[in-house]
């Protein structure tokens, strides 16, 4: 296992290095550069000024040379300066990373805590009323667009009832933990409602498949009751495919919660990546996207380790 982990960490470093070049090259291919934006902001600028600025910032050099310069600086700990926020990249990125991890963590915990038991209950009585009711909610959650649901939540809870804030992370001036918690309720609810249906459906399918296996009949033939059959024999087997789905969602939620973050004015990674790309903020976009890559890699590694823990037939060397 130690050797497996070491190999995977080494692989991850290689993937990150390749991704950093790919992202750098792709950003370089985008029309326009920061100097164009400076020109449009300052009508008195002459072509000579622009050329001088291009040389100063190094954007006149070929992409490979620019990438090499960036990589050297990055390895030395200098990730550059965000043009958009006028601050070092990490100073901008770390708060957004913290916000996203809170949002992602709460959403995952909640949607698993609701979706997995709901899926198991549905699988125990397939095609019953309970099953149909659970499926109805699951499909509703999957089908309703996140932006529509988000707006609906704001209208109901912030406008009509006025019990929760419509967006942001805390009241101006700051009022402590409970104040911040209040700001999290609606975005977490929105993301949870969007992902819980998928978890329910996957868990239901995996559990139904597992309950058809021969070893479930063996357990019943031993006199095991329903609870023992489901929790002691089926659940661990049924979790194996579900873990894959959770791992995939990990990466998606990290950088893909853009719509939710936008609607609730929540300063997370999705919004940061979007803004930095739109604003030609190369340094920030590059590092933010690399963080998204890293989180996806970590999610997959956690899934692999979880497989081995769940299923003794899987061993890593």
């Amino acid at each position, binding site marked *: 296992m130690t050797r497996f982990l070491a190999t995977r960490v080494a692989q991850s470093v290689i993937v990150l290095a390749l991704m950093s070049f790919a992202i750098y090259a792709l950003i370089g291919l985008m029309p326009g550069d920061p100097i164009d934006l400076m020109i449009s902001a300052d009508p008195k600028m002459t072509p000579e000024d622009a050329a001088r600025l291009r040389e100063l910032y190094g954007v006149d050099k070929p992409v490979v040379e620019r990438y090499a310069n960036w990589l050297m600086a990055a390895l030395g700990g200098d990730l550059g300066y965000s043009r958009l926020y006028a601050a070092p990249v990490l100073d901008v990125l770390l708060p957004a990373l913290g916000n996203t991890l809170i949002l992602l963590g709460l959403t995952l915990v909640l949607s698993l805590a609701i979706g997995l038991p709901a899926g198991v209950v549905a699988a125990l009585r397939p095609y019953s009323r309970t099953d149909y009711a659970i499926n109805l909610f699951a499909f509703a959650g999957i089908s309703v667009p996140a932006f529509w649901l988000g707006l609906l939540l704001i209208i109901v809870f912030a406008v009509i009832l006025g019990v929760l804030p419509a967006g942001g992370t805390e009241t101006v001036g700051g009022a402590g933990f409970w104040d911040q918690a209040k700001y999290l309720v609606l975005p977490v609810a929105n993301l949870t409602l969007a992902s819980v249906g998928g978890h329910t459906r996957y868990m239901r399918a995996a559990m139904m498949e597992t309950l058809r*296996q*021969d*070893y479930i*009949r*063996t*357990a*019943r*033939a*031993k*006199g*095991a*009751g329903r609870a*023992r059959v489901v929790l*002691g*024999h089926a659940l*661990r*087997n049924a979790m194996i495919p579900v873990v894959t789905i959770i791992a995939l969602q990990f990466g998606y939620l990290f950088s893909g919660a853009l719509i939710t973050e936008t609607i609730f004015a929540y300063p997370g990674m999705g919004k940061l990546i979007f803004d930095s790309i739109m604003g030609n903020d190369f340094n920030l976009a590059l590092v933010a996207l690399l963080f998204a890559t890293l989180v996806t890699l970590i999610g997959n590694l956690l899934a692999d380790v979880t497989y081995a823990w*769940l*299923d*003794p*037939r899987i061993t890593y060397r």
Partner: protein
Amino acid sequence: MEPAPESREAPSDAILEVRGLEVTFATDRGAVKAADGVSFDLKPGLTLGLVGESGCGKTVTALALLRLVPPPGRITGGRVLFGGDDLLALSERAMEDIRGKRISMVFQEPTTAFNPVLTIGDQIAEALVIHDGAGRAEAHAAAVGMLEKVGIPDPAERAGTYPHQMSGGMRQRAMIAMALICRPDILIADEPTTALDVTIQAQILDLMGEMQREFGVAILFISHDLAVISEMADEVMVMYAGRVVERAPADALLAHPLHPYTQGLIETLPRHGVGRGRLPAIPGTVPDLGALPDGCRFSDRCPLADDGCRAAEPPLTQAPGGRWVACYKAAP
């Protein structure tokens, strides 16, 4: 075949009486009866062999005794009398107390019948934990002891391994240990050797005989293979398309089968030193349970069938020598 010892002949009170058992499967084309009026007795310490082709209702009959028939199948009639109760009338909770404790089962596929994510030892010990409220250490020790009894080397170490780390033969031994750990009165063995190689088959059959002598368990031994049945059974019951067509003491049935179907089954057995030509086969195929011939279900494949056979289904009637047969043409 060696002659049966005297003790095997001695009739004793039945421990399990099955009367008119009927299992119906709902299909797209209507209800079909996979087991239709099956009746038999199991006696302590003796083995009843249940033989028939694939799809004749052997497995369904066995599962019905434990009320484990999978949907869309349902038990739609009959009684299973055991210890003064009709098992078919018990609550599910009461049935759980019987399964694994009083009546247990060995399945055909040792590969899929074990849970892949639990250790062999835990799976063997589980029945003790469920039924006797045994503690973990106590149940584990009993599981190791049982593994030793069924002839698994290094039982203490083996108990900690997972099913995929064992060979098929070892797994089947472990399954027998799992079935016997609570010292049940009845063991149902559904094709326990079919998935194994021939050399391992013989070992498993020997082991089952040994365990029967040690624990005095009554065995319902199911197989499609009459050769295997003849080695194990004291009494044999032949099923065809959901019905019992013949039941007799093993030696009598093999030496002198009464039903044309049984005669056909015995003729298809390869024999040592007799001929080198083609093996005989029963003409035709097993009928579709949804489209049975009129009258006797075997009439369309039977060399002796006449209009009387096609008019009405022959009932299972008693013949001399403690035998039963469902055939108008059966000559004693």
